[in-house]
């Protein structure tokens, strides 16, 4: 008797659904035969069985979904009757959990430490085979913070051990490099020094692939059923398919990309965002900045003043300087502010600590240092954790206004747009030119209510429009 379990069709999916059964109870089945179509967000694949036998029982109906590793069917093998197979399976399942680590003839392919992308790259025409041989370990709920040590812990949770040489563990820890999904080229799939160097080179290199435009799935006719299901809202680009005529480049997921994906998706899905927008008059701010830079040897940017103003506002409205916890809202005494730094291959938000206690010069130097080291991949783990508030500035790209996604577990993020000359209506009805900068506060409504957010934004705007209050 063999129990067929929900396969991990694509690395990183925790569950999948039965689209349709291709065999019926009582049918003879042989190794290599596709018995069921499994559907995930991204694809529908045929699942091929590995034993000879008689299909004995359907455990998961069409349209139903289940976690990877859940039993979905029973096969009678070795001349066993269907009734006996079902009985045996029932006994086994009665005591078993849905752990994917159970020894299972169907899932007995040795675990390959290949990344999803590499599997696809190697076997683009046979996604079914690739899926069948995918490691049986299921992804647990994604961890909230991307760190190398936690990645290893998550690996343990998944029941799959990532082999990393002691040297690489240390270097990765020191440099805050996430090894999730990194492929080891050493014996037993061990991640060795050269793999880390390769990873670092990839991160630092500016071989940024152009954004893949979402393209309709072009399933191979030989494998896909005639009417492929396209889950609404899911990314349409499926690198596994060999579309006719469209050339493309696969950019393998780095650890950073996965981390960004996971965290921000979780943030958008679970944090009740609301948004407040304000226009700030920045003529005085810009004038002050020019004056300061005449005297200062290190140039102060508008963003430095913005970050400092944000810190002031957090002091003015301390309820906004907080994070959501299971049992309490944690209010911080100091303003630790994360600043978004764009990298060629992604985004990182190092934290500048105690901004409320730093002078503008110190803020400027600190931000510059963090950005530089961020671009070189030399940030330390403590520097990318923490903080209750973020500032993201896309003004240098000419963006007028945007809303940012909160970095969990923070409670707020300020999106800063470009300062532009615009017409304003003065008190006496005249149209004048002024320089305005539009900012949008995204706030976590679990922690920050509307009024608090509004007070914060007002405090911020006041500081910006009275810039001397920033530098006192």
């Amino acid at each position, binding site marked *: 008797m063999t129990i067929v379990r929900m396969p991990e069709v694509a690395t990183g999916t925790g569950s999948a659904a039965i689209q349709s059964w291709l065999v019926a109870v009582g049918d003879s089945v042989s190794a290599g035969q596709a018995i069921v179509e499994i559907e995930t967000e991204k694809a529908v694949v045929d699942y091929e069985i590995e034993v000879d036998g008689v299909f004995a029982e359907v455990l998961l109906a069409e349209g139903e979904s289940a976690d990877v590793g859940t039993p979905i069917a029973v096969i009678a093998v070795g001349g066993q009757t269907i009734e006996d197979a079902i009985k045996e399976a029932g006994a086994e399942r009665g005591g078993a959990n849905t752990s994917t680590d159970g020894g299972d003839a169907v899932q007995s392919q040795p675990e390959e430490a290949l990344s999803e992308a590499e599997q696809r790259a190697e076997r683009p025409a046979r996604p079914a085979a690739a899926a069948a041989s995918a490691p049986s370990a299921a992804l647990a709920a994604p961890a909230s913070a991307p760190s190398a040590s936690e990645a290893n812990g998550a690996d343990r949770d998944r029941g799959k051990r990532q082999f990393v040489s*002691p040297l690489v*563990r240390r270097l990765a820890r020191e440099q805050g490099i996430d090894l999730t999904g990194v492929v080891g*080229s*050493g014996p037993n799939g*061990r991640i060795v020094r*050269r*793999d880390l160097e390769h990873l670092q080179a990839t991160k630092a290199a500016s071989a940024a692939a152009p954004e893949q435009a979402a393209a309709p799935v072009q399933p191979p006719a030989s494998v896909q059923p005639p009417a492929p299901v396209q889950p609404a809202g899911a990314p349409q680009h499926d690198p596994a398919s060999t579309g006719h005529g469209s050339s493309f480049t696969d950019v393998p997921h780095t650890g950073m990309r996965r981390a960004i994906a996971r965290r921000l998706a979780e943030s958008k899905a679970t944090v009740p965002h609301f948004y407040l927008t304000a226009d700030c008059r920045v003529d005085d701010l810009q004038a002050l900045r020019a004056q300061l830079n005449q005297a200062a040897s290190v140039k102060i940017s508008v963003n430095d003043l913005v970050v400092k103003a944000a810190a002031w506002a957090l002091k003015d409205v301390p309820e906004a300087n907080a994070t959501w916890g299971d049992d309490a809202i944690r209010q911080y005494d100091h303003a630790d502010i994360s600043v978004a730094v764009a990298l060629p291959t992604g985004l990182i938000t190092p934290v500048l600590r105690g901004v409320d206690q730093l002078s503008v010069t110190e803020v400027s130097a600190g931000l510059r240092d963090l950005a530089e080291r961020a671009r070189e991949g030399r940030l330390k783990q403590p520097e990318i954790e923490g903080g209750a508030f973020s500032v993201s500035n896309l003004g240098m790209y000419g963006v007028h206004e945007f809303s940012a996604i909160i970095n969990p577990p923070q409670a707020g993020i300020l999106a800063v747009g470009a300062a532009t000359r615009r017409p304003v209506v003065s008190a006496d009805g005249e149209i004048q030119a002024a320089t305005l900068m539009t900012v949008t506060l995204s706030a976590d409504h679990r922690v920050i209510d509307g009024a608090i957010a509004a007070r914060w934004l007002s405090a911020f705007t006041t500081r910006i429009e009275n810039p001397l209050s920033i530098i006192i």
Partner: protein
Amino acid sequence: MPKRRKLQTGVDWIQLESTAADWRSADPVLLTNILGQLHLIRAFEETVLDLAGEGLVHGPAHSSIGQEAGAVGSIVGLRSTDAVNGSHRGHHQFLAKAIEHVTGGKLNLEFLIDEPLEALLRRTLAEILGLAQGFSGGRGGSMHLQWLEAGALGTNAIVGGGAPVATGNAWAQKHAATDDVSINYFGDGASQIGSVLESMNLAAAWQLPVAYFIENNLYAVSTRADEVTADPRFSVRGQGFAIPSWRVDGMDPLAVHLASAEAIERMRSGEGPAIVEAEVYRFFHQNGPYPGSAFGYRSKEEEGQWRARDPLERTATELMKLGIVDETLVEGVREQSKMTMTAIAEAMLEPDPEREGRRRIRPELWPDPAVVDTGIRSDGSELDSLTTVEPADHVDAWRDVTFVEAVAATMDRRMEQDERIVVLGEDVHRLNGGTNGATKGLFKKYGADRVIGTPISENGFFGLAGGLALDGRFRPVVEFMYPDFMWVAADQVFNQVGKARHMFGDNNTVPLVLRTKVSMGSGYGSQHLMDPAGIFATQAGWRIVAPSNAADYVGLLNAALALEDPVLVIEHVDLYGTKDRIPDGDLDYIIRPGNAAVRREGNDVTVLTYLSMVGHSLEAVEETGIDAEVVDLRWLDRASLDWNTIGESIKKTNNVLIVEQGSRGPSYGGWLADEIQRRYFDWLDQPVQRVTGREASPSISKVLERAAIARTEEVVEGLELVRAGFGGRA
């Protein structure tokens, strides 16, 4: 019918008894000394047994009660420059010698114990109890009881272990042109063991002034003397080695003295060794305060008979008969001895706060646990005045020599400069420099007194060399023809020489060099072909050098000869004939401990190796093209390893390959790999890899021998294994 003629040894074997006339004509000073010493020792031993009964003696207490006359009779009258050593049951000999030293051979029975004597008794008891004020800082205790100043070389916990040491001491006494003597005490139980028999042979062959004093107390623990040998008159052994022997009643101190005097006279006149056998009886069981009869191997009756012959009683009776002492005086002697010992013991004890009615040792008297590992070896300061040369940096002229010529040349230079250096080994004085020519020319130049061909008795002659080193007037260089012979000599190599400095509280220096040659590839088979490095590296007291080339050999041997520690110098048959070179005109430089040499710089793997495998490693690196850093360790013992060079290299390359030739079991790299993974774990990109021979010791068949050992091909395999560990991106 064959012709038969009885052969005679022509060597005396005498039973000696004292007569009334002897007692009458003996010097009263001698007799009162004897009486006093007997009482002091008896009181001391009783105190030890009392303390043992209270559980305050940590370890065994082997009492000499009943046997005092054997010690006192033979030792009274010896000089401080004469030497004694004894066995595990050696308090009486130690005390007799030390009392003789402290009192100059004069005891005043009325005022028996003055301050120096009291101090001696106190320090001896302290040492037995393991206390800091003891002679060896409490480390030696009862069975390693030593006071070099008094000529007490050290009791020995290994049965027969002291015989070679005493023999070596006698060798030093003779060759330093003195007429001092050494006496080695042991019992009936030791008279069958190899080290004793080998020592007797050496002493007789080389006419050494050493006496083997056999205290026949009829029992070895519970085994009777007549159960373990065919003729239980143990002095009969003298007949087999051409050593004159005496048998005496050991309960009669005068008889013992008279016999010993004859033996000592023979020795002082340079005629050679002697054996004295004294029948004695220990009143108590082997160890502890109970009589042997309590353990069932002898009867109370027998014990009673011997007690009636108590030497203290006998001596007192004789002296009173002669009117030299009266009963009061005798009691007074006894009283003074007991009171002094009681006071000494009490001063070391206090009531035990945790056990009502019991005593404990005063806590402040214990040695500081922090010193547990001090004094294992010298601090190396004896090298300070010598010049270091790194041969790789030598820019002046070179002299072409073969490796083995460098060995002989360095030995010659050192022997010329330092008269104390002597060479011992099998055939070192013949065959034009021994079996490989390492001592070529030395016998001719320095003669039989300095280049000594030994009988085949590794334990005996190595132990004799150990005795020389401990004495210090001579610095021995011992050759073991093959490393595996260390097993034959294992007790003297490891238990005696290797432990002496630490065990006796860092009061000894042990300047001994042991040379041997790795012979893998010679076809001599399983019992001849080991690499000794691994086994010696387990011994804290030994240093180890392994030169891979002639110029290094000069510097390493010079350092070894200068150090006050035992040093193993490993050579290799493959290297002996190689054409090599040494700095011209300088045979005096040293290479200090803690100095490895980087033979090839590289970035991808650290190869740690030594001796002939350095060459094989370099060949293998060329062949594989791997960018390896090859480190020639040179100093191999744990204390002398160059961690600076090793650490820097590992931090650079992140990969380690330890290369050696011999079989895996006794291999050297095991402990090194363990230490490396502990120190450099976070720098390692793969496990520490190793090249060694196979599991079993190499056998004689040429093909099997080659398969059993490592050479260049095996290092190539090892390097490829490392390369695989670089991963797929390498």
